[in-house]
């Protein structure tokens, strides 16, 4: 039996390799220059393609077999089987020491590692919070938002412009950015209240594009594509830090904000509003029939998500001291969405893990810098095919009634 499957897999992979080589042949082999009228033939690429796709197809088929067998086991065992990883990290006896260890490492990080590493970690932390924010809108309330980066841009430009024109400091603008973000969240939320599913996705995508295009073209307001530079770094009671100290300082600010965001979202998830969101995600009509105010729940999800994004925008502007519209493209929204979905929708721990994976991996894969986006795209597909519920599955709070004490 096993030999037979291996034989069929080998045959299937050989066919797949031939097919892929045929598909990629023109693009990989031929390069034309229509001005000089020259053609370059690169036949070696075809050989690489054949070999590479054969190996990949073999692995793919092997994994597919495993996946299908796993599905069969799950079905026969009726009830939800959790993956080993999510069971491991959701176990409180593992989770608590892990959290303590993580906190110590995080607190000591800037003193042990270089400024470069700290900077990378700051951006990873920014994405953790962005992921948590989008997790509220997409993961909990089930509202697919493809223009999330617009709120991030709102926060960043709020700080940059207020700093540029009125020389307001970071700590003054941070709450203002948060309020502005929630305002924009409601602004987007109102027109899309009636839309569901994919229509919502495309309207939010359009909203994100509109914000970016306005920032690009309204030169008097946002200084256009050249952006705003010389934004001041955060200070503390008038102290201005050197670049190195400022990085450490921003790192600790970020760490504080991350912890705040984690605690808030984890608590929100089990609160009355959080349960309303889950109900909304599962079935809008049933949710309304249960007496939940749909409008309120939706607007709250949008505005809370937007608040977190705008706050992060202000931190981002303060960290890089320079922003332009190129930082707020659709790819950025897709990246944040990927963090949420790859990590596991609705799961706080999953989002954190997803953010670290997706931000740190490309950062440390600079050795393959040309191929990293290719690998990134491939990873997204592979994870979705083999783990569609994300790395760590969200856990719903379960209330158990003890019949003996009743």
């Amino acid at each position, binding site marked *: 039996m096993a030999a037979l499957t291996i034989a069929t897999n080998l045959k299937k992979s050989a066919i797949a390799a031939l097919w892929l080589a045929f598909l990629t042949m*023109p*693009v990989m082999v031929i390069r034309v220059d229509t001005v000089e009228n020259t053609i370059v033939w690169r036949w070696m690429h075809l050989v690489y393609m054949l070999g590479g796709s054969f190996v990949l197809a073999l692995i793919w088929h092997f994994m597919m077999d495993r996946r299908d067998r796993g599905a069969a086991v799950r079905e026969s065992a009726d009830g939800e089987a959790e993956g080993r990883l999510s069971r491991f990290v959701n176990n409180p006896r593992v989770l608590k020491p892990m959290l303590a260890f993580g906190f110590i490492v995080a607190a000591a990080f800037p003193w042990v590692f270089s400024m470069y590493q700290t900077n990378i970690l700051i951006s990873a932390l920014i994405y953790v919070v962005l992921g948590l924010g989008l997790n509220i809108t997409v993961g909990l309330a089930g509202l697919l938002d493809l223009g999330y980066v617009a709120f991030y841009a709102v926060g960043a430009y709020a700080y940059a412009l207020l700093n540029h024109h009125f020389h307001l400091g970071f700590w003054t603008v941070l709450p203002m950015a948060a309020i502005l973000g929630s305002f924009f969240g409601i602004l987007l939320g109102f027109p899309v209240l*009636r839309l569901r599913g994919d229509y919502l996705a495309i309207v939010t995508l359009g909203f994100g594009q509109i914000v970016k295009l306005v920032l690009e*073209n309204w030169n008097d307001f946002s200084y256009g594509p050249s952006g705003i530079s010389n934004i001041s770094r955060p200070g503390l009671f008038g102290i201005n830090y050197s670049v190195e100290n400022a990085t450490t300082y921003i790192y600790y600010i970020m760490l504080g904000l991350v912890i705040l965001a984690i605690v808030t979202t984890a608590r929100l998830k089990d609160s009355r509003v959080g349960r309303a969101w889950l109900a909304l995600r599962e079935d809008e*009509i049933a949710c309304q029939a249960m007496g939940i105010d749909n409008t309120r729940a939706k607007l709250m999800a949008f505005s809370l998500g937007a608040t977190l994004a705008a706050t992060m925008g202000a931190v981002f502007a303060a960290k890089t001291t320079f922003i332009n519209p190129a930082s707020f493209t659709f790819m950025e929204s897709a990246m944040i969405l*990927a963090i949420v*979905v790859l990590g596991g929708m609705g799961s706080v721990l999953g989002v954190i893990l997803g953010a670290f994976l997706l931000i740190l991996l490309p950062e440390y894969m600079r050795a393959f810098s040309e191929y990293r986006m290719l690998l990134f795209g491939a990873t997204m*597909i592979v994870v979705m095919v083999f783990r*569609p519920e994300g790395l760590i599955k969200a856990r719903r709070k379960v209330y158990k009634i003890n019949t003996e004490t009743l």
Partner: protein
Amino acid sequence: MEYFLQLFFSGLSKGSVYALIALGYTMVYGIIELINFAHGEIYMIGAFMGLIVAGVLTSLGWPALSILALALVVAVLYSAAYGYTVEKIAYKPLRGAQRLAPLISAIGMSILLQNYIMLAQTPDFLPFPHLIPDLSFMEPYRSYLGTSDLFIVVTSLVTMVALTLFIKFTRMGKAMRATAQNRKMAMLVGVNVDQVISMTFIIGSGLAAVGGVLIASHIGQINFYIGFIAGIKAFTAAVLGGIGSIPGAMLGGLVLGWTESFATGYVSSDYEDVFAFCLLVLILIFRPAGLLGKQRAQKV
């Protein structure tokens, strides 16, 4: 008046290309309810195939019109094969998974294809030869209607009529409509749903490739990134017309093309894309199912 006509025809040709791409979105959405984010990339690959065929044949010294014909055919075939393969790799294993999973793998596929073309070809803009010759009888209308505009409109029109006939009268077309209406029921009456889905991807990708070659030859340059914005706009067109509806996609494409063309001509050229999205938001607020979409009551 001449300015108006110029804008009208450029909007018409742009709109018909949007319509060609939008058809792929709308057909796929109608059948498996998935926004195929990689569709824009299929369009881009179609344009690259056209470029490669044109480059090779030009160096062999073929006449212009036969190059155009062969470039179109090869681009359509290859793009169709790409569409088929993309479905097999990224969407088929995810049937029955939660709704966001195929969307994410579609975004992943889009990133993958973009970078594949960038690495295999070049990250820079490549000049695309003018495959559509200037015909002499078009001379008097030159000031507002170029030959390539006319050619794009006629080709798109012919393609769309062919598609409509295919959907209406062939066995496969009937099976497609049945699957779009109710997939389970179609399966019960013996429709091979997997085959229908593959066919949908093949046809949609082929249509996108026609649009890709035509518009690339019209504009004169391509790079690996052209699929993204074209894809978003075509999707906008599909939603505008009512997603899942084939005449809706055609109408949506034209409305979008004209809106862009007139708004840039009479208002401001900086905000071309903003107009498109504002139009979309307005239509969705007042007619959430799109222009030709049917407002369906939700069963509880």
